[in-house]
């Protein structure tokens, strides 16, 4: 059972709202498709009107009216303040240290915030071949901080990753800093049970906040490693009416746009 199944809103909505609240006005956010893109745009439509959204397709400072289905939908280019070649995005903007927040999803995360989006089972003989790392390895290295968004279950929050696609705190205990990665690494994992943050010293993720309707025991049970729990676990405010309205309106516009049949071009 998902931690977020409650009548008023879906787990995705709850995670999106929680993630959006963590973004601040004028922050520079490197956005991936899906929930991160929804969260970043929700923040823009609510409390962060001047947030700077960068998509790896080369669109900088974009303000899409509907959520892009792909990372390079036309809407992103038309509303961007600059559209640059993709190699430049990765070299000058991401590696250049210009990104405050990178948002990452994955198939699996471990206790140190390392992510797998590559493969389940052996790499050479996969059980499930996933799309792969894409922009994530270098977002994980260079963004000043990273937020991970992922639904919680023992299959996704695992003791051992099958493959490490992008690095969090590696083996913890300062391993990341020793690796030379410039960014501070994952600073929050937002799930459908609550929020985890890295503990000082060990850099192991621990539960620091939960949704009202979820118990700590449920969150621990939904984790594939013995989840540590902070001394005090905050209660996350449920999605507010305005947050849900704006988010649902955004999704409605997006669904409409995606279902609008595109005439064959010739």
């Amino acid at each position, binding site marked *: 059972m998902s931690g977020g199944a409650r009548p008023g809103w879906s787990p995705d909505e709850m995670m999106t709202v929680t993630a959006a609240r963590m973004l601040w006005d004028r922050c520079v956010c490197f956005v991936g*498709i899906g929930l991160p893109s929804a969260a970043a745009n929700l923040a823009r439509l609510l409390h962060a009107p001047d947030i700077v959204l960068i998509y*790896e*397709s*080369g*669109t900088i400072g974009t303000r899409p009216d509907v959520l*892009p*289905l*792909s*990372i*390079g*939908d*036309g809407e*992103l*280019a038309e509303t961007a303040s600059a*559209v*640059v*070649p*993709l*190699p430049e995005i*990765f*070299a000058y903007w*991401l*590696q250049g240290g210009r990104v405050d927040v990178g948002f990452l999803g994955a198939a699996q995360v471990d206790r140190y915030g*390392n992510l797998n989006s*590559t493969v389940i089972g052996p*790499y050479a003989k*996969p059980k*499930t*071949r*996933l*799309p*792969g*790392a*894409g*922009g*994530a*390895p*270098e977002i*994980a*290295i*260079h963004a000043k901080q990273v937020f991970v968004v992922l639904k919680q279950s023992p299959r996704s929050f695992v003791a051992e990753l099958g*493959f*490490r*696609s*992008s*690095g969090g705190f*590696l083996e913890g205990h300062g391993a*990341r800093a020793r*690796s*030379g*990665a*410039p960014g501070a690494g994952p600073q929050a994992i937002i799930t459908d049970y609550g929020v985890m943050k890295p503990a000082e010293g060990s850099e192991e993720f621990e539960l620091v906040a939960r949704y009202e309707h979820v118990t700590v025991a449920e969150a621990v049970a939904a984790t594939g490693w013995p989840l540590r729990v902070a001394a005090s676990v905050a209660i996350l405010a449920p999605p507010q009416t305005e947050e849900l309205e704006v988010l649902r309106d955004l999704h409605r516009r997006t669904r409409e746009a*995606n279902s*609008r*049949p*595109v*005439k*064959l*071009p*010739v």
Partner: protein
Amino acid sequence: MAITTLREAIEAHVHDGETVALEGFTHLIPFAAGHEIIRQGRRGLRLVRMTPDLVYDQMIGAGCADRLTFSWGGNPGVGSAHRVRDAIENAWPGPLAINEHSHAGMAAAYVAGASRLPFGMLRGYLGTDLPLVNASIRSVTCPYTGEQLATVPALNPDVTILHAQKADRAGNVLLAGILGAQKEAGLAAKRLLVTVEEIVEDLGTPMNGIVLPHWVVTAVACVPGGAWPSYARGYYSRDNAFYIAWDEISRDRTAFTAWIDRYVRGTADFPAFIAALRADGARP
């Protein structure tokens, strides 16, 4: 530079076993060229593309390739590239060797290729397992700071194929909008084929516009709509509904093969492909 038909361009310039890059990052993906490669039955291609997308799902499912260099292989915003998965997981329709990178690594490899440097360099791959499964990811030591930086070997395809909005009669090509690593992939290649929406008298290039001059282009073919179901800014939008529909079509080997047989192998060219889709009511 020659202005020619797509069929002639593929016949003359894409050969079995070659390293071929069809680039275009979500925008301007050369689908028509991919279909023509399927029609002409190319085999053993070493495909290169940051985001394999539907175009390589189709080419790999149709048996054109035995190797794939890539950095993200899904159906963007939808889910799996089922044919790519089936090839990697189950060697169907044949084994597919993979050479896997991150986006930043692959972009650096194209930049190195365009620059005719033997390798590209980035502060990348730190803390990832990719170097464990891809021995071509190595490192150099900075001669000033001693820092180790990741390296990737330059990508220099035998042929790069792009789709663009316009060419003029001399073969100068203009691109506008999301650019991906198209220009780099084009300049990195030994031969560069471009399909375009239209051929015009005057490109009307804006200052600092993105142009591939005729003398770096091997052949241009006019194929209106040739990026569908991706898009060509100023001409048509991305057919997101088709990307969603592809999930069903491609999930099953039989359904996929029927689709390729009916619409690609069973049609003479891209206009016929579009006409067949329309005739079947498969698309509006």
